[in-house]
């Protein structure tokens, strides 16, 4: 496990993500947040672990944690096929653009998210959006629950194996009331 950017050149300057050393740390942050939002990108159906697609792990997590999900690209259709309706869907750039606007009241109109959780976007695209949020949304905390270290997030898992990833997601899911 290494806290170096997964893509070697995606370096940050003075403000780098704190490492999430164990899933309980991420769980604590999510529980502490008043309005967390999970942004799920197109790799949700491109990555698989233990014979299951990433999106299936994420649906379990979303159901257990009750965190609102916004699907990017065409992922809404993939969620719906699996019987889960995300709270919203829009392009990755649109959700990034809304998150930097403090007057945006979230998908349900009840208030701006205070924590944005990212997973499953192409690495460089997620890195750039996290950079945009680091610079222009100072009051927003960001976490990635990918298995790749993202220096521009507030908190990120270090680079890890697929087995580590599956385990982290399962532990996170299990720590919420709806988890198994």
């Amino acid at each position, binding site marked *: 496990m290494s806290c170096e950017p*997964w*893509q*070697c*050149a995606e370096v*940050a*300057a*003075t*403000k780098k993500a704190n490492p999430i050393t164990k899933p309980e740390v991420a769980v604590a942050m999510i529980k502490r947040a008043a309005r967390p939002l999970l942004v799920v*990108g*197109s790799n949700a159906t491109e990555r698989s672990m233990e014979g299951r697609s990433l999106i299936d792990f994420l649906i379990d997590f979303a159901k257990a944690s009750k965190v609102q999900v916004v699907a*990017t*690209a*065409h992922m*809404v*259709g993939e969620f*719906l*096929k699996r019987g889960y309706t995300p709270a919203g*869907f829009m*392009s*990755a*750039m*649109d959700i*990034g*653009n*809304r998150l*930097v*606007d403090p007057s*945006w009241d979230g998908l349900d109109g009840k208030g701006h998210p205070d924590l944005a959780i990212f997973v499953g*976007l*192409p*690495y*460089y*695209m997620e890195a*750039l*959006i996290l*950079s*945009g949020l*680091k*610079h*222009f949304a*100072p009051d927003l905390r960001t976490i990635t629950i990918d298995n790749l270290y993202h220096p521009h997030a507030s908190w990120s898992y270090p680079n890890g194996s697929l087995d580590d990833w599956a385990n982290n997601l399962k532990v996170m899911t299990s720590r919420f009331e709806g988890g198994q």
Partner: protein
Amino acid sequence: MTSKNVRVKIGEMKTSTGLVKNLDISIGKLVDDSWEEPMGPTPMPSLTTLRNWDLTLLNKYKPFYLPDCDLCCLCTYGKCDLTAGKRGACGLNIADQSSRIVLIACCIGAATHNGHARHVVDHLIEKYGRRYPLDVGGLNVKVEAPVTRLVTGIRPQTLGDLDEVLTYCESQITHLLSVAHTGQEANNIDFESKAFHAGRVDQVGMEVADIAQISVFDFPKADPEAPLIKMGIGTVDQTKPVIMCIGHNVVPSVGIIDYMKEQKLDDKMEVVGLCCTAIDNTRYFDRAKIVGPISWELRFIRGGFADVVVLDEQCVRTDCSLEAERVKAPVIAASEKNCIGYKDRTNDPADEIVADLVSGKVPGVLILDPEKVGEVAVKVAQKVAPMRKKMKSLPTLEEIRELAKKCRHCNMCQRSCPQDLKIPEAITAAAEGDYSKLADLYEECIGCGRCEEACPVKLEIHSYILKVGEKKMLSETNYCRSGRGAVQDVEIRSVGGPIVLGEIPGIVALVGCANYPHGGKDVYDICREFALRRFIVMTSGCSAMSAGSYKNEEGKTLYEEFPGGFEAGGVINVGSCVSNPHIAGAAIKVANIFAKRSLRGNYEEIADYIHNRVGAVGLAWGAYSQKAASIASGFWSLGVPVLVGPHGSKYRRMLLGRADKPENWEVYDARTGNKVNVGPAPEHLFQTVETPQEAMVAIAKLCLRPNDTWKGRSIKLSHYIDLHKRHYGIMPPDIHRFVRTMADVPMTMKDEVTKILKEKGWKETVIPDPTLLPRMIRKKKE
């Protein structure tokens, strides 16, 4: 027309009043303005002339910055850390710096195209004279240079006129680049406005380059039936000497082709091209062949297909010369912009240069005379071909298996790959004799070679991918239509009405570079989808090659399956990078020819017309370059939305509308002066899309325009809804924002749409005569 440097010289003349001897009159500039169209308000705009228009667009589509770097390292105050609101030593913050980088990228792009144009125009003037007439389509094209007319107010008729146009562009690029100096512009939106201006100048420069070469080299002239060109390395007869031309500037290739023809060798040799030089070679010589886009340079040099490599300018890998040395292919550098450290042999006798290259005394030479390039390239290829016997630098499969065993499983190859490809798995499998995963990479790899640079044990991973994909590579035989150049005026007359009224649902232009992780299949699929839907599909450059690189179930490429005319369901290759203004020009000509709006120096009005009425969208699926940035900027400035594929996010700034803010979507009704909310149409000006599915839905949506008639809007919405349901599995929840009256609702989707309209509390509104410009209001509100 304005012409410069008129000189009258009389040796001896007898008149009734006396004898005149050795009279020499020189006039700096002679104005012959026979163009009847009155001059508009903004000819030859300066950096701020169109600022108000830019700010209007930038207020509607605000920048969303994605800083690629937290630092500024451009001056010795720095490095300055600009993280999260900090200002640097010069006072700039990260928003300013991000927009400054956008401006610099656009300036590089504009300078590159204008530099290219300057080289072509100067060369042609030297050879054919300033008075050489321009002809881009005979009687079918009276508006020969719509972008130039619009921006500069000049109607160019001769090569000499293009010189004057370029002089204007060069002055603007100098001013624009100076803006990026430390301690100049202090506001990000003003940087953005200037980036738009760079885009305008870029479009002019490209147009100049292309109309010059079309006119003089007799390229296809607005020809919908421009010839189909063989494409793919499988079409190359490797028993013949092969000259491989790489880059963008066709002038050296013309030298090669002319020499081959003079020596009656044109059927005894192969001239193949990579990148835009390939496209332009085929416009000059229909037996030239396109072997691939920019991303395949490494593939084909390392594959050993070339006996001589001729490098001109732009998008040429800077290690091409080193790669060519490995396969013992001599290199000729033919552009002063890309000398590669070679000795300048321009003034040496051709046979001496040939001897040095053939003997291997020197690996390459710089020759700046295109005719000499032609003679040397042909002679060297003839002599070297039998000696090289197509020498390759690819290992055997058995060698790959053994080499792969050296892998340390450090993952640095994958971590260095721009596409995050699963290279380690493929190498591990190859070490066990399973090459299937390397074969899969052949389709996905964009040929950058970063994996090899990162490998601690120096595995030549790209060579392994090529070796395993060799059979497939050699079977690549496709067709690309030669670049046709401009759109005919008569074509505009036929489709201008249906485009503006919305009955042709849109114009989709797939342009730019080819760094696609799936070898262009996405581009092919997107082109075909929209051609089948009766959109007008336009392509250029490497995208045009990708579009032709796949076949339908009947074995036909796109260019064989669909007509090449500017018509519903047409698939048009306009040509190379510098042909892109024919796409912008088509939109401009709709305003001019169909709507009878004056073009001359009338930028704001025409851009306002296009933005509100012409449902055009650009997609640069694999764009990587600064030129792509400036090309996109030229379209933004005209109000035409541009999409980029996922790694286009690295352009680090989007221009996004906010559909959820109704106040952003008001236009004036030019008939009444009333403000009317027209919804987010088009919703964005520059956006990254993550998947091809998202691209297709976004394209259909971005073709919506405020001016659509109910019939046109109904057609456009039917495509948007259909694609949305297919790819997202659900009705678009924002449909209420685009329905103005119930007549807009597609008949076959009425029940589903009506349900959403009721849920959203939709209210009917009017269809205005839309404009963003108060001065276009015909009747002021009392």
